[in-house]
């Protein structure tokens, strides 16, 4: 390791390594330890997320993890293969409903024969499912979504760019309608249905082998709350999928996909079969989407068909563009940023609302920004229970912030957060020179 020449590579393995320097390896290990300690609720360390997200910080972070798995998928399709897709929510939905069909609470397949006239009552909807354990439904949810991806992929040969984006928008709407057509699986269109829990069972036995839905001791060793268990499970799964995705991108397959992104005709001339690799890109991307969708539904416990809407797809495009398309680290940064920023804004607004009565230095700021919605009390953010007027709640302001952030990032930093990181890194690498 040549200390003074950080870009010197002496072998191909070194060039393709995930973490080429000891500094990066050390930083990754430290970060991993940090995440574990954070999950265990270690003092000082867990104070960091608590500052941003409040005492229930583990919920928004755990909620982000399945979405990050799906985001890895959209990175492979849009960032690596270069096929623009707004249909990611559809593939997530496919995975999620596969999980429901296989792992759902119902115990008899007979109850699922789709005669809609007979499934009139709300309570009888969304009862279908075989009740199989997680090790069956999780791989299947990925596989079925991948099959749908393969089925859709010929469209990417027919049309390119924006036309493909519109076609995949169509997929999302067809998916929403399927949710309406099959209430025995999807439940009521608005209120949805229950998802199978994350509990690990060998088969359909009463007490799970490893449980994720109750507080308690794991194997009699360590006492964890329900949230902590889910956090660790999903974090471990995300870690595994990150390694999988990273290895895919730096392998022969990944290079072929990137060749197609950079120019598909040129790739074909060089002997990269265009259709096969586009199909593969769709399949892998949908696989990730399906796994992410199934885990997300299972973590939240209850989802409705309207949750797999176009806006979920747009979320992923935003994650990709804000984080940095084509890079795994960028995708993860984007997922953290896009999914946690609204929570941070919400938590800090709640905190600001408390400052009104505290009469300290923040009180004038709070008085300026917040309103209870009653007449005579002005401010852009409505924290009251008064019906919406011209001021909006934090929830709605979050959408505005989100939209504006997408625009600002694309205009000023097209490479996203990862681009900012590269700029900072290069600055220090070259310091004190500017070139």
């Amino acid at each position, binding site marked *: 390791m040549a200390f003074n020449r950080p870009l010197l590579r002496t072998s191909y393995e070194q060039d393709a390594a995930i973490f080429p320097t000891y500094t990066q390896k050390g930083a990754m290990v430290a970060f991993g330890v940090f995440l574990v300690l954070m999950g265990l609720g270690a003092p000082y360390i867990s104070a960091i997320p608590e500052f941003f997200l409040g005492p229930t910080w583990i919920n928004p972070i755990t909620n982000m993890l399945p979405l990050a798995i799906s985001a890895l998928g959209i990175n492979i399709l849009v960032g690596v293969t270069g096929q*623009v897709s707004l249909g990611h929510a559809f593939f997530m939905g496919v995975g999620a409903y596969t999980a429901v069909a296989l792992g759902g609470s119902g115990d008899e397949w007979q109850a699922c024969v789709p005669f*809609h*006239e007979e499934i009139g009552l709300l309570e009888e909807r969304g009862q279908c499912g075989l009740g199989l354990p997680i090790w069956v439904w999780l791989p299947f949810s990925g596989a079925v979504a991948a099959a749908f991806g393969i089925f859709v992929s010929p*469209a990417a040969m*027919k*049309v*390119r*760019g*924006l*036309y493909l*984006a*519109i*076609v995949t*928008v*169509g997929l999302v*709407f*067809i998916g929403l*309608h*399927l949710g*309406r*057509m099959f209430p025995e699986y999807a439940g009521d269109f608005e209120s949805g249905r229950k998802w199978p829990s994350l509990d690990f069972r060998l088969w359909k036995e009463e007490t799970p082998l490893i449980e994720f839905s109750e507080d308690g001791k794991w194997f009699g060793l360590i006492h964890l709350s329900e949230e902590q268990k889910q956090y660790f499970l999903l974090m471990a799964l995300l870690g595994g999928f990150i390694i999988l995705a990273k290895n895919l991108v730096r392998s022969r397959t990944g290079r072929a996909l990137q060749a197609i992104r950079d*120019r598909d*005709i*040129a790739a074909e*001339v060089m002997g990269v079969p265009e259709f096969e690799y586009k199909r593969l890109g769709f399949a892998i991307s949908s696989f990730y989407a399906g796994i992410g969708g199934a885990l997300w539904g299972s973590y939240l416990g209850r989802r409705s068909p309207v949750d797999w809407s*176009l*806006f979920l797809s*747009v979320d992923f*495009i*935003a994650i990709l*563009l804000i984080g940095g398309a084509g890079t795994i680290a960028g995708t993860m940064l984007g997922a953290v940023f896009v999914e946690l920023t609204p929570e941070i804004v919400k938590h800090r607004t709640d905190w600001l609302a408390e400052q009104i009565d505290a009469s300290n230095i923040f009180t004038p700021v709070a008085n300026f920004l917040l309103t209870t919605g009653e007449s005579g009390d002005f401010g852009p953010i409505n924290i009251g229970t008064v*019906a*919406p*007027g*011209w001021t*909006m709640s934090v929830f*709605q*302001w979050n*959408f*505005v912030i*989100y*939209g*504006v*952030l*997408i*625009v600002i990032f*694309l*205009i000023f930093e*097209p490479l996203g957060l990862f681009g900012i990181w590269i700029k900072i890194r290069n600055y220090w690498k070259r310091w004190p020179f500017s070139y």
Partner: protein
Amino acid sequence: MINAFLQLAQVGTGATLVQTLLKSFALGSVYVLIALGFVIIFKATQVLNFAAGALSMAGAMFMTILISDGGLPLLPFGNPLAPAEGETASVVLFFVNVLIALALAALLGLVIERLAIRPMVGQPLFAMAVITLGIEIAIRPFNLDATALEGRRLGVPWGASSWNWGDAVVPKSYIVAVIIAAIAGAGVLLFFRTKLGVAMRAVAFDQEAAMAQGINVGRVFAIAWAMGTALAALGAIVYGMAPFPPGGSVSQEIHPLLALRVLPVIVLGGLDSVAGAIYGGLIIATAEVFAGQYLSQWNSTLGSGYSTIVPYLVMLFMLLVKPYGLFGTPEIRRV
């Protein structure tokens, strides 16, 4: 399947057929208006305007603010053309207000073009499209919040009233929609014959060459966005008239999704073709309305609201036959 066609022939009386045809033309008119907005913006600036949903709804919101609230918020003066409290405007006054609302929508389009689109000229098409997605997300809460929970009235003078032609009931709004779309379509076609329109076509063909010929490309961009936004807003206002599903108001549920339903139209017609927008709108609306009318006895099998996905199915089928639409320019690929 054969059974379905037999049913199609038997179910409808003549009056049903006339009504269904008229309904498809009316819905087609709405689609044509919004599709024209898409096409003009795409032709001139190569941006697929995903913000059309929020922008068109904002235009309709301006209309309700003008006519129901009697003036814009935060401004010291009211709208002198608003009808008195509890009354509906006369037809002339209503259309004057529509024009003001369209002008406001055009202004909104200008602002957005200047702030968000102009700095992105020359960037990849997808990046530009995603910028418009961001705009859509940012504007949408303002629309939804202003609509509150119940729809805001558009104050259409003729309400839901209709004429009777024999057995067929012909809502006045449908006729108005068709007339407005015809005027707008003819106006756009004529616009492309004027000097400015020719300049826009030149910009669409090659921005740099157009600039070298002395065309102010920035101004063409601005005009395209103003026109596109105003046309989309007109579509949303027309869709707010009574027998259309929002029922004489701007709806929180139906209006935000309206522009997304037009995406199949522009794929069918071709993203950059005015004629394509017109034919595409009419074809898609006819398919949607006829499916909604004549397949309704299978509602329980097809799922309620199945007619809203008919456009997407037509679009997917169309892609297998003609990927770049009826009148679209095929992408030229080079190595």
